């Protein structure tokens, strides 16, 4: 979704969703908000629909939906759910509790 810049972004996220289910839509909204707020210009976010690309589910070991995978920085981290609990999402993704430019 986001145009990848020439140098790889500092943060890279893959969000696997299942169409437009309420959980998926909420997850998409939440992650976008977080990224924009905490990592403006430093992230790459891919939103992948498992209905469109079902082979990804096996390849990426996806069981639950929605699943957010932090691809970079390593180690990989996985978050399952609609990401509605902002504070724990930040902790899990290793982001500072307050937006840098706030």
């Amino acid at each position, binding site marked *: 979704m986001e145009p990848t810049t020439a140098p790889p972004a500092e943060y890279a996220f893959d969000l696997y969703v*299942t169409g437009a289910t309420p959980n998926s839509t909420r997850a998409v909204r939440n992650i976008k908000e977080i990224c924009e707020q905490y990592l403006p210009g430093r992230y790459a976010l891919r939103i992948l629909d498992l209905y469109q690309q079902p082979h990804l589910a096996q390849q990426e*070991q996806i*069981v639950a939906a929605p699943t957010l995978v932090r691809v970079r920085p390593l180690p990989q981290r996985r*978050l399952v759910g609609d990401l509605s609990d902002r504070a724990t999402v930040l902790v899990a993704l290793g982001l500072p509790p307050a937006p840098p430019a706030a």
Partner: protein
Amino acid sequence: MHNPSLAGGSALPRLPKAPTGIDGLDEITEGGLPLGRPTLVCGSAGCGKTLLGIEFLVRGIQNYGEPGVLMAFEETAEELAANVASLGFDLGALQAAKMLRLDHVHVDRSEMEENGEYDLEGLFIRLGYAIDSIGAKRVVLDTIETLFAGFTNESVLRSEIRRLFRWLKDKGVTTVITAERGDGTLTRQGLEEYVSDCVILLDNRVIDQITTRRLRVVKYRGSTHGTNEYPYLITEDGISVLPVTSLKLEHTVSNEIVSSGVSGIDAMFERGGWYRGSSTLLTGTAGTAKTTLAASFALAACQRGERCLYFAFEESPAQLVRNMQSVGVDLAPYLAQGLLRIDASRPTLNGLERHLVTLHRLVSEFRPGTVVIDPISNLISVGSISEVRSMLTRLIDYLKVNGISALFTALVSGREGRQEMTEEGVSSLVDTWISVRDLEGIGERNRGLSILKARGLAHSNQVREFEVTPRGVELLDVVVGPTGIITGAGRLAQRAQALAAAEAERLALDRTDRELERKRRVLEATIANLRTEFESVEEGLRRARAAQPGAPAGDDNAADTDGNTKAAPAGQRSV
């Protein structure tokens, strides 16, 4: 045997079933698992749940051309493939042929955090994709409860698993779900058994330090099924459940007679032995020469040039050979020649099913004409009586189908021995039953042998005494005394008595003869005496007549009569 048409009306459709191709399981479930529905296979660790699942898939592909999907939550595809390779299942080749898809689902809580609402749609998509990509008809999920370890939100999981079962049904795939057995429940989560249409319980029970695997169909919606616990084996060819009822009695029979190895026993049968391919039971108390008789039978088979397989559960081959040499049964040359094979092991070495497998393997390898199992009663120490019975049924049937003459010895204890064997039901399985026992008399024990039954063979009804001599087993002639047959020292006493009686009779006869002789001599003496007397009277008369001149020449007859009448009153008799 089964008549599953409970509905009675043949017009009603029967529940469609997917045959598993697993030995015996289709008999118990009367055709297989419910087609297009989920079946739960539950059991504790080491029961072969995964194996049953994989065999279901592999047989489905090999025998029925139905592609399958295996979704493994615990083992990776490589591990599974390696595990079942020993059974001859080549999962790699089946995958390459697009008949099988393996998907290892990795769920690890440490790598994952939950945040907010979620569902398991990812799993559905994954499974749906795998099914659609090869057009699978069969699905195995092994083991779904692993999800409970990966996710904390139990209510979501429960509803999602329910939804999964529903979804699988709608997909129309026949599914096998495996689950660990819980404490007091069939599964840990107590969920799968309610949403499955068929539940198969595998059990791995240790009784008296011996493990036996058992299988039971707990529920089967819309169908009758075998309700018992059936022992099953994990063999080189996969799982084998052989319920007794599935064995049909269809084997061909031979009319040929084989020798028992003891001429005396052969003579007790009208045809001089028992049928080839029949099974013979030899029961007896301790020390009644059961092994000797069994070895004689084995020797006779070898002497005919047949291969013989001897299972010894009590003695090592060397000990058996040595002991039998002492009674003139020399097995050593045939052992060296390869005609005889002795397989000695402790019965407790293995569970019953393992013994059966060993037996099957050796028999198929060695192709014997004769099999001796000495003794089968030792196997009872391994399992319960009903298990042993079912094992023996399968064993005897296997040997019969292959036309192998079998001899089993069995140790029975004391007086109730015969009854005991009957309860075990072994006796009804065999064709010929020979009983050897102690005939305990005054201060000694002798061995007696009798034929209790012999199907299709006329046989002697006598209890025969036999001796184990350096030349083998010899049957003695029957001696019947006033209280039945007489054995041992009694036999000798009887013989001595008979001799004495004969002697006495001879003496009595002699005495009568002598008496008669004496009487004859007395009579002769009397006659001689009378004659002398008569002659002297006659002489006297003649003289008198010569003294009277003119007297007519006497009538001889009259004179004779006179002489007699005169002599009689004289009463001169010598004693």
